[in-house]
């Protein structure tokens, strides 16, 4: 009967990899994300090696303290994500909701802090085009307070270009994650997840951990080195 065929959802016949479609799908998708960040980070590495003098020493332009706090926040959100998953796995709805909300909040806070950081940097004269001429930072550079060597700090735009593009795209990913996570959280409040079916939670969790991992790499190579 054709109706049966129509009703049969693809999900009913999962063989293959031994994982359900959504999980396989997100892993596959993350493969693509890896390549995306590889393009950005790879370009950064090449440009940095080519322009050693264009990058200020750690902490001179970027605020490591603030970002360290932010990094800590993101790592914590990964922990709460794990907790949320564990909770739904055990069928604990209350904890699930609690931890999801915590994750969403921390994710949103991360984005907020990043926006604050950007605003400050732009104000100081550090933008995607490099150090703005006549800005506070340019004065400091001229006074020799920054370890920027040759070429001229005002034209060595690569520092700002790579910084804003990489962290910006990471921030964009976090934002997307927060939006999706909010959706999952709403579903959780409607009781859509159970100990036996909680695909959404696991899938968003995988994405979240990935974004977290990328941040740890970025924090290291952009801020600390």
């Amino acid at each position, binding site marked *: *009967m*054709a*109706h*049966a*065929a*129509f*009703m*049969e*959802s*693809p999900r009913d*016949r*999962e*063989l*293959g*990899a031994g*994982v*359900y*479609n*959504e999980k*396989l*799908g997100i892993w*596959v*998708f993350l*493969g*693509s*994300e890896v*390549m*995306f*960040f*590889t*393009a*950005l980070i790879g*370009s950064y590495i*090449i*440009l940095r090696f*080519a*322009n050693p003098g*264009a990058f200020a020493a750690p902490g001179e332009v970027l605020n490591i303290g603030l970002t360290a706090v932010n990094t800590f926040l993101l790592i914590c959100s990964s922990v709460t994500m794990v907790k949320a998953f564990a909770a739904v796995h055990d069928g604990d709805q209350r904890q699930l909701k609690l931890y999801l909300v915590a994750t969403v909040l921390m994710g949103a806070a991360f984005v907020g802090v990043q926006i604050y950081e950007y605003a400050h940097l732009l104000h100081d004269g550090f*933008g*995607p*085009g*490099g150090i703005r001429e006549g800005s506070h930072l340019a004065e400091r550079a001229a006074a020799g307070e920054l370890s920027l060597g040759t*070429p001229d700090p005002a*034209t*060595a*735009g*690569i520092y*700002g*270009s*790579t910084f*804003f*593009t990489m962290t910006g*795209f990471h921030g964009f990913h976090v934002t997307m994650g927060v939006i999706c996570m909010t959706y999952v959280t709403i579903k959780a409040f409607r009781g859509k997840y159970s100990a036996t079916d909680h695909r959404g939670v696991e899938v968003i969790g995988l994405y979240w951990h990935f974004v977290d991992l990328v941040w740890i790499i970025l924090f290291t190579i952009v801020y600390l080195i």
Partner: protein
Amino acid sequence: MATTAIPHEPVARTEHQELPFIRKYIFATDHKIIGIQFLIMSLLFLFVGGLLAMMIRWQLGFPETPMPGGTVLPETMAPGGILLPEFYNSLVTMHGTLMVFFAIMPLLVGVFGNYLIPLKIGAPDMAFPRLNMWSFWIAVPAGILMLAGFFVEGGHAAAGWTAYAPLSAKGEFSGVFAGQQLWLLSLAVLGLSSILGATNYITTIVNLRAPGMTWFRLPLSIWSLFITAILVLLAIPILSGAAIMLFFDQTIGTHFFDPTAGGQPLLWQHLFWYFGHPEVYILILPAMGMVSDIIANGSRKPLFGYHSMIYALIAIAFLGWIVWGHHMFQSGMNPTLGMGFMVTTMLIAVPSAIKVFNWMGTMWRGNIRFHVPMLHAVSFVAMFVIGGLSGIFMASTPVDIYIHDTYFIVAHIHYVLFGGSLFALFGAITFWYPKMFGRMMNVFWGRVHWFLTFVFFNLTFFPMHNLGVGGHMRRLYDPSEYEFLQPLAGTNRFITVSALLLFTVQIIFALNFVISLFKGKRAPENPWDDNGLEWTVPSPPPHGNFVTTPTVYRPPYEFSSPLVEEDHLPQDRDLGQKTDPASAPGTG
């Protein structure tokens, strides 16, 4: 329970009516409808891309002569019907861009990936039908953005489909501002669509195969689409990343590719070709796969060397990641690296050769039926060989010094992409048309179209090799500027006339396509006596495809098997396992 042998119409059709029009045809989640949506979109782009090519050819064949009908173009493009150089550069750029990204790629991947994968593996739909819908509806705005570029101030992108920086990075250099930005934005959006599609294909093929459909029972079309999806998944994000960086260079003042502020023009080329070479395989592997299906069918023989065909695909996909530098031999890249890239490029010709010989092996001692798809498939082999062989000239770095950036390259591209992919596509469209629309395309006009296309294709593109050998640079608005190109003017005119004819005879295909929708002979379930699972369901198949999940007993190409009277043995026919040696996984 209805069996797979029901004639079409009854239950399935009424079932369809239950969905409102908009869900069924516009925001459809049925992979078959989405495939057809992609088909319509990419055929339109194919037409537009072809139209641009005609303008390019007119300029090259008859410079300074007003183009017939050219006066409809605004003053900023072609005053008095004579193309301006800046518009010519946009034409060259957009011809390449539309053909690669909006015609061939969606035709192969968007159309046949969508249409064939679930049907051929015995699944009711894609793993993520809704995501599939998104993948189409993200491609549409990308196309609109791309077309919008023609109407903005400064004209459309004009830095070539390869968009080499810094020409593409700063408006002052090209006179193009918004056009280039729309171009980049469009590609980034299209990239998202492709990545979502690839995610879907991979998941579907891994997880949704019907019982018995082991990896080594998958038809080559599916294998090739699987490998293509992996390439799409991993290559497209590189382009997206690069396009975004270039977009930022244009808009928010970053300096990635700007040598005056620490950026590197060659970085763009490396990123572009690191994506670009896998991309050219994205543009050919599905064609190879579908041609394999059609040649086995036409020859009534199992595909020769099924396993090595798969390994060759895999080898191409792997090697495809380490040859990108062959596009940059003369770019100033370290010459020692060039040597390495020469070696890998030479090696990648080997699996291509294996495939060609195996297709010939399939035809050898066959019982060849020359249906229209087969005509196109054999033409694919004949033309792809030429493209592969011309690749060897360019792979030899010293020879490439001379022929790089000449019409030799243009000839190569078109032998692989038109002679290769597009012939395969004509074959594939004709082959699966009855399944898609429930009607057969007209055979007589199919043959006429094939013949004329084959002839005019070769008359158009073969002489381009000779232009290249004569030193004729590509992307040249007016070759008569150069004395040494004067003797080639006759060849250029000849090519232009052939190209115009080539374009014109495509009307036959368009008419055959449209008229057959309404007037074509009703298609039976299995018009080509094929073995694939898609031929066991009605034409067109109902939403959900299979009434009962099929079980697969054997590899896909059991033609002329001694086990049965007739010359084909469908994958799902149960002969009783004992008697069917081909049923054991791994044989074949």
